[in-house]
């Protein structure tokens, strides 16, 4: 088998329940080296949960997740840490440490995992911040910059160890169209030039079609469509068409009430109370 076709991430029959709700219902996917896989789907369809299982933060009820050919669900903490040093992860919120400056946040993986000298660390941090268009922001605290900037700092931090594999949870939400293009271009360059593999969760369709080499669409915990961007664009499934064209009405149900959200892992069922009862103590 030549290295080009070696799978970097291999998920087989992943299954996860929260209580009685099945959030991931038998998902299998494979990501090859140099690919950019975009995972799409409506809010609460299990995209972030899937990502959390792939990076080993959550354990599945059944199924297997292999990263770089090693089974992550069967690893101890130390082995997981060894794998985690080889990939970068961009969180939806950026997840910067609020007590550290922007520069210190980006430097953190370098200081913890490498023996670089102070000047080398500084140079690398400057270079990575430049890549995401944030030169000169080193000494600000995360609270002093905008949400979009925080996300770009998160990207710089995810890339600082030059990972072979990058996971991004909605990398472009909260960014303006120009910055979105910059981040997309960066992802493209890294995958094309340095052979990085990227797994991107997004529902920004412009960005998705720009960077994807392959796309997967999730719905109700299952994969409802997959293929190249062209195949997805012309996919016969009306649900897929509704989603990529952003139409309010179609085969996909509109999730407007709590009952519609039964698949959402974060929504806990509450007993139904009348409006009068619910707001009783707030009405003088």
């Amino acid at each position: 088998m030549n290295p080009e076709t070696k799978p970097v991430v291999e998920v087989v029959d992943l299954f996860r329940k929260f209580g009685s709700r099945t959030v991931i219902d038998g998902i299998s996917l494979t990501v090859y080296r140099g690919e950019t896989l975009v995972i799409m789907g409506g809010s609460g369809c299990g995209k972030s949960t899937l990502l959390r299982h792939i990076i080993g933060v959550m354990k599945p009820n059944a199924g297997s997740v292999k990263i770089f050919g090693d089974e992550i669900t069967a690893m101890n903490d130390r082995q997981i840490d060894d794998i985690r040093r080889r990939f970068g992860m961009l969180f939806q919120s950026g997840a910067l440490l609020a007590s550290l400056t922007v520069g210190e946040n980006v430097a953190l993986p370098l200081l913890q995992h490498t023996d670089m000298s102070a000047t080398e660390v500084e140079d690398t941090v400057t270079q990575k911040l430049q890549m995401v268009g944030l030169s000169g922001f080193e000494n600000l605290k995360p609270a002093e910059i905008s949400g979009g900037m925080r996300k770009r700092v998160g990207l710089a931090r995810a890339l600082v160890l030059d990972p072979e594999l990058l996971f991004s949870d909605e990398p472009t939400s909260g960014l303006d169209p120009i910055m979105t293009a910059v981040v997309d271009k960066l992802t493209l360059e890294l995958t094309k030039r340095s052979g990085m593999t990227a797994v991107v969760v997004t529902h920004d369709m412009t960005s998705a079609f720009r960077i994807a080499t392959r796309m997967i669409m999730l719905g109700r915990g299952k994969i409802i469509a997959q293929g190249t961007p062209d195949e997805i664009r012309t996919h016969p499934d009306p649900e897929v068409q509704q989603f990529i064209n952003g139409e309010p009405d179609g085969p996909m149900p509109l999730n407007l009430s709590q009952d519609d959200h039964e698949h959402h892992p974060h929504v806990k069922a509450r007993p139904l109370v009348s409006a009068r009862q619910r707001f009783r103590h707030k009405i003088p």
Partner: protein
Amino acid sequence: MKNFLRLNASLLYWIFVAPFKGQMFKISPIFRQMVFIGVRATPMVALTAFSVGVTLAMQAAHSLQQLGAEIYVPDLVMVTLLREMGPVLIAVIVIGRSGSAVAAELGTMKVSEEIEALEVMAINPISYLIVPRFLAMLVMLPALTILGNYVGVFGGWAVCHFALDFNTAGFVLRALESANTWDLYSGMIKSAVFAWIIITIACNAGLHVEGGAEGVGQATTSSVVQALLAMLVTNALLTAVFFFGA
């Protein structure tokens, strides 16, 4: 409770085992935490200890005067401070000041995904966040207690010197004669045990916050309440063991 024991087990691992496996914790964050937990608390600790020393001396003088035994005021101030009031009151201040701050800080980090981000960057949160706070507390609470003892005795001296007819040499001689080293050591042992109680309860509360800002508030409150109760009960137990058993 299960979480609390697990936290203690992993603390022991990261302090005593991991450094020999080449995963040494960093030293500089310990000093940063020591400044926060210890150095910045000194004015508050000094003021409290001074007031307590003065109060103790006044109450002792009032009661002992009726027996014509004012000469024993320094004894009472010294022994009470070293054995009980010093360790307990300084611990109360540190719970209110640093215990709550640690619980709130870690809780905020938990709800804003920072702790998960650390894990995904292969940085162990126990080693990176908890160990420095734990070691800083273990050093600084006894240190603050020693400071508090000094200042408290100074308060006692002030009352004796200005309100009663003690000269300084007389006060010092009486105070030193009444207290032995075990009084000091027992207070230090208590203080170290309190440090462990305060910081592990605060860290445990912070690390297991759920439910946003509201959860952080609840965890902070419950960590303060739990730490206070645990500290006072432990104090009673330790006093029983140290001074009442044999």
